[in-house]
């Protein structure tokens, strides 16, 4: 099966003034459609940097990266936006819901930048909110929701454009363990429904939900294990 994400010798160097820090030092990685992977590693090992590259929020300094068969390196900013919009859903540690919009409006956000915005986008959003049990709160502003509820809303937003790939960077970092389990169950459910899910975490209990664990240390993948 052709991988959804294919990285070959991907490097990322950050430049700060005269200093250049190489954070990713040659990543080779293939993620097949339908996988549920966890990226683990100590703080500062480069997990988020890798995640940002996978999610096309940033581009590699060198190497090759194919997302859904498309070469990412050398793409224009607008093309990256389009790629993210169509293929990737993001879930962040801090939820990042817009405070002045309702939960429903937050979920609809990705459709605003979709050329072929569907007429029934709102129905789809409500359906997603029902799926995560937030239907009754969809007219609320995010600040009236608990952390777990906010993260569930954020997952709905990530799913809104029906992307193949769900990326979650420490999605449970601000949640208690019971709520964290809820969120991870939800992500697992999405994986069962066919989404490719990649989670960044340093918590082994969270990583345990994944079917594959990618360990990264000092900018290189040191160990791979699959259940």
């Amino acid at each position, binding site marked *: 099966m052709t991988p959804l994400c294919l990285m070959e010798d991907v490097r990322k160097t950050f430049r700060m003034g005269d200093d250049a820090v190489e954070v990713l030092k040659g990543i080779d990685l293939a993620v097949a459609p339908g996988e549920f992977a966890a990226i683990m590693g100590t703080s500062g090992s480069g997990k*988020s940097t890798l995640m940002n590259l996978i999610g096309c*929020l940033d581009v590699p300094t060198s190497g090759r990266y194919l997302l859904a068969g498309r070469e990412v390196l050398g793409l224009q900013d*607008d093309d990256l936006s*389009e790629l993210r919009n169509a293929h990737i859903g993001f879930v962040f*540690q801090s939820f*990042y819901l817009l405070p002045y919009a309702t939960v429903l409006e937050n979920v609809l956000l990705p459709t*605003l*930048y979709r050329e072929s915005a569907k007429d029934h986008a709102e129905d789809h959003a409500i359906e997603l909110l029902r799926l995560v049990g937030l239907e009754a709160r969809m007219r609320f502003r995010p600040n009236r929701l608990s952390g777990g509820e906010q993260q569930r809303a954020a997952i709905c937003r990530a799913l809104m454009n029906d992307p193949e790939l769900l990326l979650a960077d420490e999605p449970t970092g601000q949640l208690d363990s019971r709520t964290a389990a809820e969120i991870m169950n939800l992500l697992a459910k999405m994986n069962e429904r066919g989404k490719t899910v990649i989670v960044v975490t340093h918590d082994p209990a969270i990583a345990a939900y994944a079917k594959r664990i990618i360990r990264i240390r000092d900018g290189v993948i040191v160990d791979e294990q699959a259940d």
Partner: protein
Amino acid sequence: MKRTLLNLKIALGSLGNFKLRTALAVLGVFFGTLSLVVVGNLSDSLALKTEQEIANLGNNLIIVVSGQIHRYGPNTPLISRATNLTLGDAEAIAISLPAAARVSPSGFKAFPVRRGNTVLKAIAVNGVTPDFSEVRNFEIAEGSPITEEDDRLQRKVALIGRTTAEKLFGEENPVGKTILIWRVPCQIIGVMAEKGADIAGNDQDNQLFIPLKTFLRNFVNLENVNIIYVQAASVEAIDPLRGEIEALLRVRHGIRKDMKDDFSVVDLKEVTALKSQAMDLISVLGRIAAAASFLIGALGILSIMILIVNERRVEIGIRRAVGSRKRDIILQFLMESSFISVSGGAIGMAAGLLMSLAIARVLGYPSSISVRGLLTAFAASVASGILAGIYPSLKATTIHPVDIIRSKG
């Protein structure tokens, strides 16, 4: 559409955090549009008023006065003591200049007027030709006009102005009565319709009109007239005709190239020029005030937008992450900044309309709505919003989702 509404709602929510600043910026744009609309409408009102005043004097009217007039303005009487315009001049204009549709020479002088025991010391008595009422827009309310025959036979008949009639006759109908003008008994054949004050402020209803020949033979014993009123065939004909009249009269009066005219061709627009100058000054001041207000408004919007972009870094990062392009972000913030200015502009336009209608009513001007003024004001408010939004919206595009995620985890 949905995106615009949602963005607007988010923007309003965010503006709520900067209520005072927003109010100040909106106020700046408000005053800017207000002054533009008021100035635009009042200039138009004044132009209308001037047109009405000129039309009131007579349609397409050119006035030739004997002697030089050195000063124009609302209070310059169109009177000169020089006596070098003749009936012959008037005839020459009528015969040789086709653009002159009607020519009505006129003489005038103040005389005492008496009826029974009532004596009016000095009433302006005008010697006029039969067509003066068409040329100068004087209507006869009652009775009959002065005819060619009245003029040819030098009949002692008079048309009386409303004010004079009231002074001499009170409620009585003057038509058919005889009055003594100077020492000549004249029969009143008609009463003029009310006309009010002229541009110079003189009561045009306090005068008498008698046939020109009667006036020249029996009252002043002269061949000269004070004024020749010429009605041009059309508005476009006015300016060329003025030149033709000047050239013709210079030849007839034997004026050499290096000599000054001994007559004046009055431009009615110049007569009303002083009022227009005052209005021009108001317009300029109003536009300066408008420009200053717009500048303040735009700077206010600029500062708010910078704050807003800063406050909404996370929002921008998330929008970029879910797929908005840079130009979507630019468009969003330009729309927000022009929304602020247009909302100020809309209130300013409404207030400006009301205010200019009120001012026109107080000044007794015809009220006029200047579409150009409204469009300018609207364009200026949109433009100030967009201009003020350019820098903040470009700044917004430098916000990268990666930086947001990194700073907040």
